[in-house]
């Protein structure tokens, strides 16, 4: 039978195993492999060699497994710090508005003068504005500017001078 059947093709293809490189090729292959590796290493920039060495070192120490827990804890702490900072730095608009009112007021007692009769705890105070905002603006515009020449208050001056 002259026609190739599937079995014959399979047998013919199996004969291709006998195609071999020149003698000694496999013996020299490892030397060639080492030579190419050295050449490749010499062509690499210094930073890459350092990076690879560091990577190898880390791999040998198995650093990723050691650092996983501390890294996770550090990440959680950083997140907590960022969130807490944001919460405390929020502007307190409502509180500022409430506190601004008594700043422009002075205290007086009901009779207009101090009395020793009533104890301090039961003393009743009433508030009265010193001047309203329009009065204050007018006074500032009318009065000449005053300059503070001596910033040290009188009470701070020494009593006795030798």
């Amino acid at each position, binding site marked *: *039978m*002259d*026609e*190739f*059947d*599937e079995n*014959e*093709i*399979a*047998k*013919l*293809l*199996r*004969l*291709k*195993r*006998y*195609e*071999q*490189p*020149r003698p000694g090729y*496999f013996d020299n*292959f*490892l030397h*060639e*492999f080492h030579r*190419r*590796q050295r050449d*490749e290493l010499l062509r690499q920039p210094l930073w890459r060699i350092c990076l690879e060495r560091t990577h*190898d070192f880390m*791999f*040998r120490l198995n650093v990723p497994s050691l650092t996983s827990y501390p890294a996770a804890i550090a990440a959680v702490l950083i997140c907590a710090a960022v969130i807490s900072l944001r919460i405390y730095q929020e502007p307190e608009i409502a509180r500022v508005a409430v506190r601004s009112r008594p700043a422009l007021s002075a205290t007086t007692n009901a009779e207009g003068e101090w009395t020793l009769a009533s104890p301090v705890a039961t003393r009743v105070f009433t508030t009265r504005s010193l001047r309203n905002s329009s009065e204050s603006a007018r006074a500032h515009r009318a009065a000449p500017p005053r300059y503070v020449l001596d910033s040290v208050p009188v009470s701070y001056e020494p009593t006795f001078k030798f």
Partner: protein
Amino acid sequence: MNPSVALPPARRLTDLLSSGLDARAKSKREAMKQARKDEDQELVARTQSGDAAAFDQLVVKYTPRLYGLVYNMTSNHEDTNDLLQDVFSKAYKAIRGFRGKSSFYTWIHSIAVNMTLNFLKKRGRRFHLSLDDVDSSIQNDKEFLELTATSSPVREADLSELQRRLNEAMMKLSDEHRAVVTMFHIQGMPHAEISKILRVSEGTVRSRLFYANRQLQNYLDEFRKNPVA
């Protein structure tokens, strides 16, 4: 009623004997495969811990086999040599990431096949056959003797002519089909192993093989009609 009981005693005896032999051969193959796997695992572990000599042993062990694989896909000795060097270089760089999900055998073959397929895509049709010498021991091969005795094209053609024809027929196949034919017919790998290496289903491997055999039959038919062109 069990159908095997109805068989004649002689038939059942041969069946039992053959199944027993098959099982023994299979278990022997499995044992060898396991021994190879264990040895490879140890060498891989040593390489991963920084022992370069262990990788050298892997190179020495797998070079002849991978050479056959790459050579029969490229049909060019120089390309094969360069590719093989690149395959081992890539494997050495990547071996730290090898987790042993597959065997080293499958892993290194996957690298070799993928790199060769990429190379063949880049090379396209610009190539020349640079064939290795056929080992003289082929003259003693049982299958070769059978072929030369029964097939007139093989009988009439000399060895180099036969080799040239076969390689030309192989190069007419697509790269993927050639890879399957090389692994199955030349390297003698089972379908399951090929499917793991190529990461395709066993059905795909079988269908590629069937199609490639048909094509080879057609190409070699010319050789049958005109043995010495």
